């Protein structure tokens, strides 16, 4: 089983929804494992196997009841100032990039494929997370974690849109429109995140998007004033969740979110169907244009 959680913007809530899916899968005994092919982040977590990975997958690993390990985040770019970044592959610094130095894409793709392969044979379900928006027309050709991963491994995807700022329907529809046609059929569903108020008001809009795109709405996640450590910057939550408490606080917040999603009628059956479909799809389609 496998699924890719994409976001219509960088802080749409991919990490938290990914963690929620991990938690659900873990509760159901489906042995999930988190995976983010590529991560651009200042904050990393030192894993027990001596590498470093992004904070997002660390939290998701906790949600799965696992120890974070480098395979969960095979490619990491860490800004090191002055427009330069350190490229970390498989938990080890590989090279400095930026200021005209291009990353070693082949090494990245190899790292992603190998890490993913190990995780998927060791676990029941790989919960992948995208990076930024998958519809950046200016970055599309170098994408690794979104359309790049879909093309590389044929992973079915769901799209998370943050409705708090408005424009969520446009974001979902526009992202679907921009995603290249060869991988667009892998977009199976969408999630509307951080909604305040009575979700029934969204009904017409949701149906319209389902008709237009063929994607299915998995559910509407209510806005909860929970404090989750941010994926890209921990600054917002710094001082709020500290030391040993971080893990416990994160998990209890996550359980609260999962309960709220369940109470709000989130379609976990459909979610499991989509992850299952990914399994069969792998054997029936060959989406390996990147090889």
């Amino acid at each position, binding site marked *: 089983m496998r699924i890719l959680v994409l976001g219509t*913007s960088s802080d*749409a809530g991919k990490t938290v929804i990914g963690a929620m899916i991990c938690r659900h899968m873990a509760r159901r005994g489906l042995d999930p494992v988190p995976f983010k092919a590529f991560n651009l982040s200042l904050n990393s977590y030192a894993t027990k196997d001596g590498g470093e990975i992004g904070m997002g997958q660390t939290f998701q690993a906790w949600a799965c009841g696992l120890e974070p390990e480098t395979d969960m985040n095979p490619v990491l770019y860490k800004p090191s100032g002055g427009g330069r970044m350190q490229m970390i592959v498989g938990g080890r610094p590989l090279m400095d990039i930026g200021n005209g130095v291009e990353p070693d894409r082949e090494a990245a793709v190899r790292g992603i494929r190998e890490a993913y392969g190990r995780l998927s044979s060791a676990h029941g379900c790989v919960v992948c997370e995208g990076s930024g928006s998958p519809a*950046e027309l200016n970055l599309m050709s170098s994408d690794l974690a979104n359309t790049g991963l879909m093309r590389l491994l044929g992973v079915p995807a769901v799209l998370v849109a943050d409705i708090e700022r408005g424009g969520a329907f446009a974001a979902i529809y*526009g992202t679907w*429109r921009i995603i290249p046609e060869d991988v667009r059929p892998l977009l199976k569903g969408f999630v509307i995140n951080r909604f305040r*108020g009575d979700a029934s008001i*969204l009904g017409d809009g949701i149906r319209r998007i389902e008709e237009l795109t063929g994607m299915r709405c998995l559910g509407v996640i209510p806005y909860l004033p929970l404090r989750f450590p941010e994926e890209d910057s921990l600054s917002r939550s710094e001082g709020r969740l500290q030391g040993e408490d971080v893990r416990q606080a994160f998990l209890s917040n996550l359980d609260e979110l999962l309960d709220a999603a369940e109470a709000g009628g989130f379609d976990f059956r459909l979610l499991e169907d989509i992850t299952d479909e990914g399994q069969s799809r792998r054997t029936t389609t060959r989406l390996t244009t990147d090889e």
Partner: protein
Amino acid sequence: MDCIKKKVNEELQRGWIGSDLACNYHPCHFTGQDCTFCYCPFYPCHDTDLGEMLVGRRGNEVWSCSDCLFIHRTEVCQFIISEVGRLGVTEAGDPRFMDIFAEAKKRFWHEGSALMVVGATSDAGKSITVAALCRILHRRGYIVAPFKSQNMSLNAKATRMGTEIAMAQTVQAKAAGLKTPDSHMNPILLKPKGDTVSQVVVCGKPYADYDVESYYGEFVPGPGRSIVRENIAFLKRHYDFVLMEGAGSPAEINIYDVDIANMGAAREADADVILVVNVEWGGAFAYALGTIELIPEEDRRRIKGVVFNNVRGDTERFRTGIPEFERLCGVPVIGVIPHGDFVLPSEDSEALRSVATMGHGRCRIAAVRYPRIANFTDLDPLFLEDVTVVFAERPEDLDGADAIVLPGTKNTVQDLLWMESAGIADKVRSLRGKVPIVGICGGYQMMGRELRDPEGIEGGVSRTLPGLGLFDMTTTFGDYSKRVVNSEGRMLVGDGGDITGYELHMGMSEVREEPLFEITNNFDRDRVTDGAVRENEMLYGTYLHGIFDRKPFRTHFLSRITHGGERYDASDSRDYDDILEENLERLADVFESNLDMDAVMRMLGVGE
């Protein structure tokens, strides 16, 4: 009447003078106005494109010119003077003024055109785009009005006429050089009262409370649409251009038919539309394309350009995506605006809702962030100081604070109850006399001994509750009305410096303390005192919003702060207004050099 005739005769004799910079009231309408005819030679013209007939208290009719800008246009004034010379007219009341008026109106009056700026999300940059366009067009000599049909805002400001409009339109009017923004520019203001109910303020006056369902079900299709139409028509009669700002996203397809804030308003105004997208959060191309394509065909054709806003770093890299975007969507990209740090009032409260601190200065000022905090913009001038504002939601957040601000609230009683249960109330009491504390509006009401709400206006149930007890003051929430007053005056403490501010609140206070200010309101010119002060305990309270804008009170309050054993040095402080003015200029410069202004002018029907 005779006295006015005499004035007009003097004006005719004096001839064209342009802007009268020496006049104490200049500019009374807009920067750059022509003051040749302070008294209009056409009075009363009875032309309803320019003025209106009012019925006086005793049933008498009075021709009102208060909204007429026509007579303050240079081309009109120069034309009148030249015609008067040509025809040899010397006396006010000469019937030939009728002909001059008819000819002047034919030549120089036309209905203005409208342009709308919508955003793919809230905080897309609509407000600053409109502000930038207002300033650019103002600099080019046009008379421009900002407009937003409906505003969901906790940041309202009182106008000179004693009505209430959103801060965003106030700033845009300032950008347009207008001195008297009024409620036509912001006819519908929604002020959240609880989680689901909003108070609807129409043309500056409280109208009624609606929940989401009744707002869209009853208000919008009923009075809402005609309110929008009438106000746009009004502005078009008086201004060259009406620059409209949308609200939220225009592509909320679940409520599209009842939206009068975006494409619905553009339709009423027959306006072309620019879509602004904030690039910062990613997904900008998708947001733009999705927004345009989800809008029904008959409205979509109004969208004539896309502006990508807030691009950090290399805009060239971003631009590489544009050709494909234009191919997919068919609407040209008319601007890519780099990120800029502009000091402008916070667009809306959402921007501050999620941050823990603002500013990077040495002094820590804790502002209590109640759940129903209002008028965030009161704090904006503090961000220019050597100050970090900490938004306090828990008692610990007040630890180490050098000063405390209790801001305004939409509901004093509910937020005071929250303060008590969160333990913040006791914490504030314990800091009395140790650090300076200032309460503004609702925060000031809380500082009193007692708050009475006999009819449950604030809390839903009748009750009386103790306040923070910092002042000997009792506030009673009497009836469902509020004072909306724009005031100026002076401090009764410190150096007695000038202050300006505005009041809008429910409830009346009985105060048995030294007053803080002496104020004259701009509407009825009453001279009264406001607020309370205990200098020895460093306690300050006032009903006036915007009290930190002018330097005197801000520096007085800050000078009471001791940080690390040292007094706060406020000698570099400046008036917020001057800083705003500089930033509006800078904003306009950035837009002018990164936006296809020719395309904008074409949308406005001007071939420049």
